[in-house]
């Protein structure tokens, strides 16, 4: 078992300094993600799915429960290093504006592998793999389009050959046609590296395209977990309504 989320809860303070209210964002969440599995987490904005993403990545600590990676807590950054990685939504801020594409990809690489020359070579290979050319190496993020930035981010994420990548709304701020290119790319890379994906999104169709299994999330709780083949036979009311409301092409 690769990733285990066990009874996780998280709440945030609401309002200003003088407010005592707090809002429960996640309520006793438990699930598992197997090696090489692609797990979708579907939810509307504000359903707490992005908070869950941050907890899985160890950026935040849960109030209760555990997030385990191969049985060890992800809060320890040495557990995360080299085995877990991420791609985020906002492509405008996903690369340090002072970094070139090469710097950005090298950052996790030098953290995991020390051999500098080999790393240089890896950057070229990675850029090719995500459909860019090595000529992109010296560009700055503001010179790239949204789709190109996301490709660089994917290259950066796979550079350390992690066993799991969290994709937090990774395609949501892109144009629809570019979304499709990125999805195809992700599918291709999965074939090469055999990583597992945790694909957090509000777009059920995109999730259905990429994932083996989806968790339907509502108001901080898991409504239903269903494998893609059984998607048409969902049980819960919310999931049924969600499927009904889809406007298909």
């Amino acid at each position, binding site marked *: 078992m690769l990733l285990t989320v066990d009874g996780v809860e998280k709440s945030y303070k609401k309002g*200003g300094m*003088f*407010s005592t209210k707090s809002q429960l964002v996640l309520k006793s969440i438990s699930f598992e993600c197997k090696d090489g599995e692609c797990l979708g987490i579907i939810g509307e904005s504000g359903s707490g799915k992005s908070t869950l993403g941050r907890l899985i990545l160890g950026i935040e600590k849960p109030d209760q429960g555990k997030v385990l990676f191969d049985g060890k807590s992800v809060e320890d950054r040495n557990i995360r290093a080299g085995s877990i990685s991420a791609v985020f939504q906002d492509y405008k801020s996903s690369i340090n504006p002072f970094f070139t594409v090469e710097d950005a990809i090298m950052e996790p690489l030098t953290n995991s592998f020390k051999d500098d020359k080999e790393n240089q070579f890896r950057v070229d290979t990675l850029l090719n793999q995500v459909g860019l050319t090595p000529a992109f190496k010296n560009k700055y993020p503001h010179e790239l389009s949204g789709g190109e930035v996301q490709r660089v981010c994917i290259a950066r994420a796979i550079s350390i050959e992690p066993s799991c990548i969290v994709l937090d709304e990774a395609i949501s701020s892109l144009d629809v046609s570019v979304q499709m290119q990125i999805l195809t790319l992700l599918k291709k890379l999965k074939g090469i590296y055999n990583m597992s994906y945790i694909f957090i999104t509000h777009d059920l169709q995109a999730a259905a395209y990429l994932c083996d299994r989806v968790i339907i999330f509502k108001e901080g709780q898991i409504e239903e977990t269903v494998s893609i083949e059984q998607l048409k036979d969902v049980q819960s009311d919310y999931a049924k309504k969600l499927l009904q409301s889809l406007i298909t092409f």
Partner: protein
Amino acid sequence: MASYILRRILIMIPLLIIISFVTFVLINLSPLDPAEVVLQSQGVPQITDQLIAETKEEFGMDKPFLVQYFHWFISCLQLDFGHSYVTGKPVWSLIGPAFLNTLKLTVVSSVAIIALSILLGVICAVREGKMIDKSIRGVSFFLTAMPSYWLASLMILYISVKLNLLPTSGMNSFKSYILPVAIITISYAGIYFRNVRTSMINNLNEDYVLYGRACGLSEKKITIHILRNSLQVAISIFGMAVPIILGSTVVIENVFAWPGLGSLSIQAILSRDFPIIQAYVLVLATAFVIFNTLSDIVNAVMNPKLRSNL
């Protein structure tokens, strides 16, 4: 809402206690022995160890620190801040009237600042990037870079002495207010009108302005909506401005010989009259906290989004 206001007021109590404690500690951090200071400021020619011991006993300085603080705190609650080292008069009889005078100057100036800032802010925002906007901002830049005491001195020289239009100093009639208020307004309005301008311009770019126009609302109605929203920001800024001005009229009061806290405190600092300094800090810090709380409350009442979050 009521519970928010109550909470906000209740939280002032520990804050004020901490403030009083810090004020008390501050004076005791002085590198000089307070008893020695007393004797020095009374002009005692020869300070002997015995005299120091006697003075200590007289002022209760031989008691443990916390006991001293407690006594002082209790008497402060009764507006008894002790006696001036120099003149021996009760501190409150000096601070009280002076505070009132400073408050008068502050209130009049604040009203002038608010009126001028809103006027200029609106003009500049509506004419953003045009000549008038640029020139107003340019002039304000130089005015804010000008030392106010310098400007004040020049005004006294030309308007009061050479043209003999206004009194040079003191606080006798409404005429005495004109120059100090003008100077304070000039040095502050330059900053605050920029705030009004920025928040108006931000609002002009909001979607609700576009939708209002798309619905055919008249420009007058739209301007009222924009003003309403930008003034919210402005009000909270002004709420902070009043106590800041209250605490910083020192220089202007000094130039115009205004019988306020500023003049009193400079005197006290020069003669190291600690009880007065202590009371001065305490009174202004209290006013500062009260005004800040008030502006927070007004802000919360005005802004529906804040209000419903409480």
